[in-house]
């Protein structure tokens, strides 16, 4: 069953990434140069919509909170995110979009994936020497969320307001930003 889901969801995600233009490095680079905000609008809208719907469904008991998986916040998230940002801007790919672009027969995506395998390998070899450094110092209590998820070991940063309002407000704000951003700038 899991394998069938993996094939279905993977196919869907790959298809969607290709059709949104996210697997096209020209679109990524021009988004990051703030020239063509098509993808930024789509990303803001997608995150806003999914966040709003997720917390509505969690509130109604339709979505299972056991499926959530919140990642820990620590110093390395910020440093790693920055390093990723540099490579993302130069190449026009991130891990998911490169995989999809390779499927869409882009040759440069194959070199990105090879580089990615080397980057992952370096990290695997380095991990034992960095695992107890400041890089893994937690921020905000670890697996923190803004909206209450109802999972015991996830600290909530805004616990006094019902989760659906917190996530709903952020979601609506994201969709509003998506709506208002200009598609192209000159």
């Amino acid at each position, binding site marked *: 069953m899991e394998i069938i889901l993996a094939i279905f969801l993977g196919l869907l995600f790959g298809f969607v990434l290709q059709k949104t233009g996210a697997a096209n490095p020209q679109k990524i680079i021009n988004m990051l140069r703030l020239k063509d905000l098509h993808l930024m609008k789509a990303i803001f809208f997608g995150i806003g919509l999914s966040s709003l719907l997720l917390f509505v469904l969690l509130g109604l008991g339709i979505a299972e909170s056991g499926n959530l998986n919140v990642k820990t916040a620590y110093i390395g998230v910020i440093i*790693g995110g920055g*390093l990723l940002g540099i490579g993302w801007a130069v*190449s026009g790919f991130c891990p998911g979009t490169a995989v999809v672009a390779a499927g869409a027969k882009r040759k440069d995506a194959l*070199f990105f994936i090879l580089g990615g395998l080397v980057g992952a390998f370096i990290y695997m070899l380095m991990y034992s020497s960095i695992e107890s450094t400041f890089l893994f110092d937690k921020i905000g209590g670890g697996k923190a969320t803004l909206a209450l998820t109802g999972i015991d070991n996830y600290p909530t940063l805004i616990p006094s307001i019902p989760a659906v309002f917190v996530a709903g407000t952020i979601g609506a704000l994201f969709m509003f930003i998506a709506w208002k951003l200009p598609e192209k700038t000159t």
Partner: protein
Amino acid sequence: MKNILYQKQWNWKISGVALGITFLLAVLLIKPIGVSTQFVILDGIIWNSFSSELVIKDPAAVKGYSSQNAYLNKNGGKYARSVANPLNYSFIFVLAMVAGGLLAISLQSKETGNENRVAPKIWFDNFGRSSITRYVAVFGGGVLVIFGARLAGGCTSGHMMSGMMQTSLSGYLFAIAAFALAVPTAIFTFKKRR
């Protein structure tokens, strides 16, 4: 409907709704979408095929496997287990993404059959027609992106999209850091010198 399946590229509204529904569907059905971990798993599978002692069955480990490599061994041997069993959800998911990309271009109308697939136009405008330059730069970009993603514990899919969907603090921090460096890097790298 047919129109949507055949279009080369969707407008931002369809794109946004499709992205949102995909990430939501994944968390409703099984778990949030993530990609970058699978680069480690593929490395592990390759490494394990050269040295069979990399990952071993270990009844004492929480996940039933352990590894001499500290990273594969963390979280009770979670990654070690995936390396030993490549037919797991997350790995198959990423393989299916490749097929998804292929499916999308196969359905698309033929008007753009001979598109350049070595570098985007903006790359040629800045760095000339050499494929080698592009491949070297993209390779280096790949090293940085996956190294950064592993240090951060996730990438654009796992942290930015899935993370912010769940209102995770880590997702917002990651997104801010990634854009804060990506935007100036892109503006500086692609100044259109030619």
